[in-house]
């Protein structure tokens, strides 16, 4: 686990476990297969996957908004809370639509959980002020919810969820409703805030860059099952399946033949480390990230191809190189490199950057 900053006043929450949690809805759709997940105390785990993968259902089961099918259990610090309703789980939750109360102003929204817990007015006011400062919404305390911008609402929702010093913070796509620029800025703020609080956090998103930036661990989900659990680096550099490789970041997924310690492509061959058992010929599927491929002079290069297309993105350019493998290989090249369609180029790949994927994986 990643070491945390010290000096947090909110405690670190609880360890959360979901054991064999499946969910079949009344209409028969199975949103979640049997899933088991352990979240350590104080860590941030991101549930990542395309829509319909079951990530929100899993979050709602942990929150107590849904019951898992028979056999599933939810544990907070090893205590079974499966049958405990959400209002007695002491969670803090941020909804995609924020679920702020239009009949209360900002301060009343943030203080509502404390009011429910019987915290007196003065103490409540102090805690609200603390969170208003922490989330940077000073001056908005007496605004009505409909007078706030999207970003401000997001902060209020977060402040409200954190105000009650929850055992676990649950965030359901909290940035999805915002526009791209604001999303990026709030992601940074959210990251700092989560590190400061050091509270157990489960964060649902379909945005892989959000997952990378925020998660200590990422749980990639697909079709109601967990595809892979790992650190952002694990997930990025060592995807367990073709699906994970394609979903997280850009990836070239190409077929090759493994022959005597080398990966043989139509356009040349690469030395491979510890791939396969080294016996005879084997068809394999490998993943190479575009940024780990370098463009070199064609003469003497291990892999050769032709530039099929170049798109300039500012900080770099992405080239599609044909003739190397069955389909064009994407390469991220420095923006200063003169590249044009039709150029014959060589490709250099660090053997460590070639990742063998399970052959039959999807």
């Amino acid at each position: 686990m990643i070491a945390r900053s010290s000096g947090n006043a909110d405690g670190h929450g609880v360890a959360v476990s979901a054991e064999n949690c499946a969910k079949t809805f009344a209409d028969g759709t199975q949103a979640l297969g049997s899933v088991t997940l352990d979240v350590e105390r104080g860590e941030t785990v991101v549930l990542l996957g395309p829509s319909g993968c079951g990530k929100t259902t899993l979050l709602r089961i942990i929150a107590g908004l849904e019951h898992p099918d028979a056999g599933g259990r939810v544990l907070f610090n090893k205590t079974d809370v499966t049958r405990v309703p959400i209002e007695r789980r002491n969670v803090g939750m941020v909804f995609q639509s924020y679920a702020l109360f239009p009949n209360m102003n900002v301060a009343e929204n943030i203080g509502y959980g404390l009011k429910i817990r019987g915290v007196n007015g003065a103490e409540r006011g102090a805690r609200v002020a603390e969170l208003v400062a922490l989330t940077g919404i000073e001056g908005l305390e007496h605004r009505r919810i409909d007078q706030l911008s999207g970003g401000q609402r997001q902060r209020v929702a977060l402040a409200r969820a954190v105000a009650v010093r929850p055992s676990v913070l649950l965030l359901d796509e909290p940035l999805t409703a915002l526009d791209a620029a604001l999303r990026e800025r709030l992601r940074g703020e959210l990251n700092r805030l989560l590190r400061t609080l050091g509270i157990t956090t489960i964060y649902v998103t379909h945005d892989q860059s959000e997952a990378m930036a925020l998660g200590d661990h990422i749980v990639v989900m697909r079709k109601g099952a967990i595809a892979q659990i790992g650190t952002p680096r694990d997930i990025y550099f060592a995807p367990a399946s073709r699906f994970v490789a394609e979903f997280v970041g850009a990836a070239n997924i190409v077929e090759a033949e493994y022959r005597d310690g080398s990966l043989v492509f139509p356009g040349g061959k690469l030395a491979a480390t510890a791939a396969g058992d080294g016996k005879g010929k084997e068809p394999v599927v490998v993943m190479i990230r575009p940024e780990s491929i370098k463009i070199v002079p064609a003469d003497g290069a291990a892999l050769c191809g032709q530039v099929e297309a170049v798109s300039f993105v500012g900080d770099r350019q992405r080239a599609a190189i044909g003739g190397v493998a069955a389909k064009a290989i994407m390469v991220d090249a420095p923006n200063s490199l003169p590249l044009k369609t039709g150029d014959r180029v060589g490709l250099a790949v660090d053997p460590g950057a070639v990742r063998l994927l399970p052959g039959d994986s999807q």
Partner: protein
Amino acid sequence: MRDRLIFAAQFAFTLLVAAFLIVPAVLSMLAGVTLNYFRGIQSGLTLQWVVQVWELYSETIFRSFLIAITTLAVTLIVGIPAAYALHLRSDRLSRAIEEVITLPLAIPGLALALALLLSYGGFSDFRRSWLFILAGHSVFTLPFMVRSVMAMFGAIDVKTLDEGAASLGAPPWRRFRDVIVPNAAPGILAGSLMVVTLSLGEFNLTWMLHTPLTKTLPVGLADSYASMRLEVASAYTLVFFVMIIPLLVAMQTFARYRGNPAALPR
């Protein structure tokens, strides 16, 4: 020029239609303060008919208000939680219940009254009291309350608000009181005004359910039309108008804000 002509024609037509509807009402009210209607307004204006109506029928007016207010109380107590439950649950049973609640809208008031008489007419104390009329009015107005509140719940995403409050530790009744009801207030208000107005003006059902001792305002109105001189009946209409018009205006005003609590004046 042509546009102005068209506009003028449309405006005149609108005025004509409005006059066609408004003139009888004005004439009727005017008759209520005319000394002798057959001799016309030149016979002089008087409040004696209004006073007479008050003496003869004030009891029915108070009873009508009593019934309207208690009907409102019943529909609020039954209707809001029912709307809440029906909104949160979306299974077949709740759809069926919703239909059953709405049924009284489609059944003629007389048939409804007959059913009530057949079922509960035997409980003679109940039959003889105003509570019998209350029962009829509650059945008749409940769908208006439930529909109105449900429409509001639909507009404010009440499920997410409820979950939000629950996540902050609020037990169900606190969520209902602190979050659900305040945010559904415009819908509840619209429903309330409708219930009160309908109950005050209800005749069909009430006419079947009333006894000589439990007459309501509209029943008294029919009674006065049948047995009193025209001026008295008209004065009665005037009293009825004066009471019901402010309610209708309030209803119109709040109907405009339905589904948009943020637009309510605060």
